């Protein structure tokens, strides 16, 4: 049998043979058959309502009958590039897929390599990782709210979201030395110790953010105009969410109880007392509310982390394998600046042969890494599946049946971040 790679037998798009969830259509919507006079509208990539992607929609009047997401406008071939680079160089590389959620994006990679190396970070390093992860999660949700505000024409929400995000960015900057691209977790630990007044500042920020969440509710979530736009829009049932394999807040807004922090607690997440909010409605409003509740829980985690950080002050933040035999200059620098100097062996780190799979809960949902090592200083294969990529399928199935004006509302509620999806 000869296979022609570009054969014409590639099946074409055929909506009618599709079934999602329990019914053929998403609840409350009926997909009309496209008439002769179809009107194709290209939303993006230079379009305010699309970000850096394109959605090709076919409209019948004002109702979208078909949506075809066209991804890849920020596809930077991270998987291929990582096959040619040393392990440590991949950390900043994969970080770029979600720089607003940097720690969460790199952590599973670091974990996977740590699994292969057979080492685990020291206690304080774990707390620092959790601290940065939660800071990033809140910052990422606030970013999402900001963009959501823009999509609904609510410029104040954008400004408030970005303004309050600056507090978290400032915290992260004080901790890691960079605003967004922290490159913080590293094999065996983290790169910097917390500065002197970090926990005090953290507590102040938590108090302020708690107060602001109430403002958000009054201004944005309970605002009748916004509610009207979100309520009952883009409903995804529990079954559909499972079938489509959604992740993160979008999944939990549809009533599925899944969060990697609870299912397979990584780092120090099993030591903290927190809840994971789950909403039943599955519409855009529920997706927005899930994030608000998650911010509240993240603040709760951060409070506990602050206590733990105070308790473990002065402890080692690097695994013994990379820290026991370092020259005295390294320890002097660590004591003076809290900066972990790296052994030159990091540049040519060889990882034992094997395969590892790691998953963590990033701001937008579960992020998974599959790493295969053949014993050399470069990985044989790195497979990254990011939350936005798994959520991208929603555009195809959740948008048809809605009006053109609902597209930004649904897009915003997914909190979709194209660089993360395209990798």
């Amino acid at each position, binding site marked *: 049998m000869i296979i022609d790679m570009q054969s014409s037998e590639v099946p074409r798009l055929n909506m009618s043979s599709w079934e999602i969830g329990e019914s053929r259509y998403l609840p409350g919507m009926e997909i009309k058959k496209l008439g002769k006079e179809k009107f194709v509208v290209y939303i993006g990539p230079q379009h305010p309502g699309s970000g850096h992607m394109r959605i090709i929609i076919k409209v019948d009047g004002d109702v979208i009958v078909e949506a075809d997401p066209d991804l890849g406008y920020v596809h930077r071939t991270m998987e291929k590039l990582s096959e040619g680079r040393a392990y440590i160089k991949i950390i900043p590389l994969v970080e770029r897929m979600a720089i607003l959620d940097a720690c969460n994006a790199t952590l599973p990679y670091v974990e996977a390599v740590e699994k292969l190396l057979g080492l685990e970070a020291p206690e304080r390093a774990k707390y620092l990782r959790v601290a940065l992860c939660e800071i990033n999660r809140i910052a990422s949700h606030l970013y999402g709210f900001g963009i959501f505000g823009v999509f609904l024409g609510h410029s104040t929400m954008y400004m*408030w979201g970005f303004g309050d995000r600056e507090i978290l960015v400032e915290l992260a900057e004080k901790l890691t030395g960079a605003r967004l691209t922290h490159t913080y977790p590293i094999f065996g630990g983290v790169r910097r110790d917390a500065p002197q007044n970090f926990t005090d500042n953290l507590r102040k920020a938590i108090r302020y953010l708690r107060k602001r969440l109430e403002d958000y509710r009054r201004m944005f979530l309970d605002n009748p105009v916004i509610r009207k736009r979100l309520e009952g829009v883009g409903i995804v049932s529990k079954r559909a969410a499972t079938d489509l394999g959604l992740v993160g807040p979008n999944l939990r807004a549809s009533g599925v109880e899944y969060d990697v922090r609870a299912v397979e607690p990584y780092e120090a997440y099993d030591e903290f007392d927190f809840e994971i909010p789950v909403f039943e409605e599955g519409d855009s409003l529920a997706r927005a509310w899930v994030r608000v509740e998650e911010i509240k829980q993240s603040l709760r985690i951060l409070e506990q982390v602050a206590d733990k950080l105070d308790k473990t002050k002065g402890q080692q933040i690097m695994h013994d394998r990379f820290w026991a035999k370092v020259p005295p200059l390294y320890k002097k620098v660590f004591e003076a600046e809290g900066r972990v100097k790296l052994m030159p062996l990091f540049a040519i780190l060889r990882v034992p042969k094997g395969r590892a799979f790691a998953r963590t809960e990033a701001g937008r949902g579960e992020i998974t890494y599959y790493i295969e090592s053949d014993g050399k200083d470069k990985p044989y294969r790195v497979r990254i599946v990011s939350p936005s990529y798994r959520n991208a399928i929603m555009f195809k199935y959740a948008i048809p049946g809605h009006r053109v*004006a609902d597209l930004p509302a649904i897009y915003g509620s997914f909190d979709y971040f194209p660089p993360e999806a395209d990798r």
Partner: protein
Amino acid sequence: MAYISIWTLTRDVISTVFWGIVKLIFWPPIYQFVIIPGLVAALVVVISIIWFERKAAARVQMRYGPLEVSPKLAGYLQLFADLIRYSFQEIIIPRTADIIPFITSPFFALLLSLLPLAVIPVSPVKWTWPLTLSAMRYSVLIAAALTTLSPIFIVAMGWASNNRFSTIGSMRESFLITAYELSAIIGIFSVVATVHSFDFTNIVNFQGGGKWLGLINPIALLAAFIATLISTSAFPFEISDAENEIVAGPFTEYSGLMYGVNMGTAYIKRWAMSVLIVLAFLGGWRPYIPPPNAGYIAGYLVPSLIVSAKAVVVMALMSFLRAVYGRYRIDQALHISWKYVFALAIAGFGLGILEGYLL
């Protein structure tokens, strides 16, 4: 032989020319259409209001807004900079556009949105009325009719641009026209029912002594206010040029000066509607009452300034909503305007009739 001093002659000529110019300026059609509350006032107000809109939103949003252009004036010159930039930028006319409507529509829309200002009285003094006495008796009717003209050209703009987003935008605009016009006109006409007159002068005179019709009949005021928001695509009804959905709606393809004109048109329309609302509901030039045979200043300039000041406040209120609201969806806006605003307008009209019977 009579000796004519060269100085006297010069003085006479100068005074003739001066008074001629003054007369021309205060000639009602010119004054109202071009100066106050027409083009010049409208431009000044629009520039100030856009500045206010940006600064007010910025205040709520924890920042400063336009500033560096003139830090001492808190960035007031920002709009002039934008205007200059617009005016000298390249004007692109897409090859696929329908050229004649594409070019002419923005200017027609601008002129027609100014027209209602040319038929309303801004002073009770008879010589200042821009229409004949008999026509003046129906000034509410004429002004209301003229407000409905400019949207047609916005629809034409979208059609002529031959762009998908423009087409969707103009479709939305045409949906909205039908939705708001009735409510706006019925809302304003409820005062007619109360006062038993189509004459703005009578309506304003009726509102003497703080007896503003907006206070007597707040329902109709609310209906007219919301209808104005819809008609001028102000938040939360910024739908026909919703940026995040359909780029700039009917104006997507316009560049340079022509977009500047378009941007001005929506605000000028809001200005005209605000002036109408002020006359109908907020007491017009009251509490000031000019003497019956007052001159240019006391009889024309002062009352027109009072009307303008009140209208600016109304506009500022409308602009502030940007900081609080997002935008509705088109079907929700239609739903609101037909189900609630229209009902409000009818209720206001009923209340107006009742009050007209009682008062």
